[in-house]
């Protein structure tokens, strides 16, 4: 879409091109977060931006290049790891163009990289899930099932990135109790909420209290299922209790990945003429790159011992006392 930003009266004469990842806007998580970052830059710096939503991974290359070729574009934001290989070549070819990439690293002087330690945030929500399954707790639209110690994880496609979410989540749950049964399943698609819903249904009916998803639009089905089963769910990338407000009564927390901050910061560096190409920002809990954010309906409503032990782990991870794995044992 074009004509974003406040027309013409830009304070800083900066234009940004942003290429999202497949799945597009409206995923109520990853891409929408990136968009939020740009929008914030628009309102604070008065920049202009143009954006492009690739339908397929293969569209990304041409979209990057279209922006790179335009002289008035100062920064091209590439949202998602799928941009990496194309960007490696394009960064070399368009060496005067400034790029930023989220979720992957491209070793070039004109690219600034932002990667996240999703497993750290996932650890915290895993711990939250583990604690909830062992507690008798009811609030808003859900209640726990103290009879069973089962929690679930729903992935989109079984890629190493999503595996990292799962690994952190498992480790968090195990940190609470080795005996917790963490079920996982992959829907095979980031756009199949019906399957996501059925996976979650199965998990809940087997006695799961909480299901965490990292599956894009498929996750909508997980929330739907949580709501109809009266159980809890954990969102991803964004505070989904806000972005998917209809489900705020079951979204106990979200593993937020501050893609918006990354996008905003990169634009800021361009606006302030402080672009540090070649740099990699590895963002975890410590850098406020990821975090477990309690859902808006659950703010202050979770048992104190739960919140405090999560707080404790957060510190321990930051301090290096807990080492969060990036892979599950079986993969």
């Amino acid at each position, binding site marked *: 879409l074009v004509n974003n930003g406040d027309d013409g009266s830009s304070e800083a004469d900066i234009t940004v091109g942003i290429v999202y990842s497949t799945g597009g806007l409206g995923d109520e998580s990853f891409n929408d977060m990136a968009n939020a970052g740009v929008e914030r830059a628009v309102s604070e710096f008065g920049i202009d931006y143009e954006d492009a939503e690739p339908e397929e991974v293969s569209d990304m290359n041409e979209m990057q290049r279209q922006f790179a070729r335009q002289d008035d574009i100062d920064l091209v934001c590439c949202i998602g790891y*799928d941009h990496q290989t194309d960007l490696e070549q394009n960064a070399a070819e368009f060496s005067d163009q400034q790029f930023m990439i989220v979720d992957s690293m491209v070793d070039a002087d004109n690219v600034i990289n932002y990667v996240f330690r999703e497993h750290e945030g996932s650890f915290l929500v895993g711990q939250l899930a583990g604690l909830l399954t062992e507690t008798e707790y009811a609030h808003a639209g859900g209640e726990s099932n103290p009879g069973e110690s089962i929690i679930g994880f729903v992935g989109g*496609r079984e890629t*190493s990135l999503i595996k990292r979410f799962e690994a952190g989540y498992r480790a968090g749950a195990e940190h609470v109790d080795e005996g917790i049964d963490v079920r996982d399943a992959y829907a095979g698609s980031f756009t199949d909420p019906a399957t996501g819903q059925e996976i979650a249904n199965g998990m809940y009916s087997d006695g799961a209290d909480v299901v965490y998803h990292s599956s894009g639009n498929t996750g909508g089905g997980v929330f739907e299922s949580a709501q109809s089963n009266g159980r809890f769910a954990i969102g991803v990338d964004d505070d989904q209790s806000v972005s998917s407000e209809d489900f705020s009564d079951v979204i106990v927390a979200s593993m937020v990945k501050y893609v918006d901050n990354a996008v905003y910061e990169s634009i800021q560096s361009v606006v302030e003429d402080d672009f540090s190409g070649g740099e990699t920002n590895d963002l975890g809990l410590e850098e406020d790159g990821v975090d477990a954010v309690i859902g808006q309906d659950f703010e202050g409503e979770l048992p104190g011992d739960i919140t405090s032990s999560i707080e404790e782990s957060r510190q321990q991870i930051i301090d290096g006392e807990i080492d969060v794995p990036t892979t599950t044992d079986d993969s």
Partner: protein
Amino acid sequence: MSGLRSRLAGTLDRLVDASPLERLIISVASLIFALVLGAVLIFVSGFVATCDSPVVFVPGVGYGCYNPIEVYLTMLQGAFGSPVSLGQTLQETTLLLFTGLSVAVAFRAGLFNIGTQGQMVLGGLATALTVLWISQFVPNNAIGTIIVIPSGIAAGAVVGGFWGMIPGVMKAYADAHEVITTIMLNFIATAIAFYLVNNHVGDLSSDSVLTETIPAVAQFPTSIDSSRFSLFALGGGLLVAIGITLLYTQTVLGYELRTSGLQEAAAEYSGVNAERNIVTSMTLSGALGGVAGAIYVMMVQYRWQSGIPSFGFDGIAVSILAGNNPIGIIPTSLLFGALKSGSLAINFSLGVPTELVEVIQGLIILFIAMPEFFRLIGKRSGFGSDTPATSGGEQA
């Protein structure tokens, strides 16, 4: 006056009735109708969409965001307006040429290969792995390229051909309908490729599901600056189109392949092993799909990455639009290539969703499927005699 009119009508009569010409007219008319319907869709949807600078105001309805003519001009500009756009268009054209030919080869033999997509996916993967491996042993120069690129194409053809052979065998020996088996095999091919790349043969350090990038020796030399298009690939496609035409019109094998697909019992009568020929046709078709995958990997993406665009399905449209005539596929693949690269442009500069082009492509196919529609229109407007239509012999 009346003499001129009747002469003109006579010419048009002959045009409407003549078979190959008729097909051409129908193709062009389908395109025009689809574009007109597309324009209506663009215009109407402009009233639903929100935008900052509407192009039209209709009292009582509201503001319309899109001007169809502007949209089409932008598409044209985006397809041919600059060397880079032209490169993009020709890149798409080259790939569609191969997938279209893949579909046409099967169609000519009376088989409906919906599986070109799957054949392309697996063929492309085979190419990527093969060239990654072979490149280690060849010099990093033109000689290396001369060795590596043909090997990559061969690998794609072999694997794509194998994947096409499966539904061929199932059709020939178990009577399983190729439309269903090829649809199923598409799903299976995508999953197998994903699994292999994600878990075994890909770049396991990447979060994306992709192979390593192929080295420069394995990349087609680009013919237009800053776009990934190679005249070698396009030229190869043109040669293949001519070759297939000759195969089917001039050779015994082509004759036998067609006969087997059209009427198995008659093929047997003529002394042909119809089953084996069905397998051959599907294998040939699959091999061309595999070559399309090979070119995609070596000319466009320089690696295999999950989410191969739907060239296989678009190939069906390209082939049907051309009446499954290999030479006719040349202009139709150019048309669809232009539509595709034009679609990126309208999204970029006008904010019209790229899916519009898919709708237009679907409409083209729909109109192509019903030649009777145009005959009726022709008759209504007084042209063409009302000879009953014989079904298009070339189509399935």
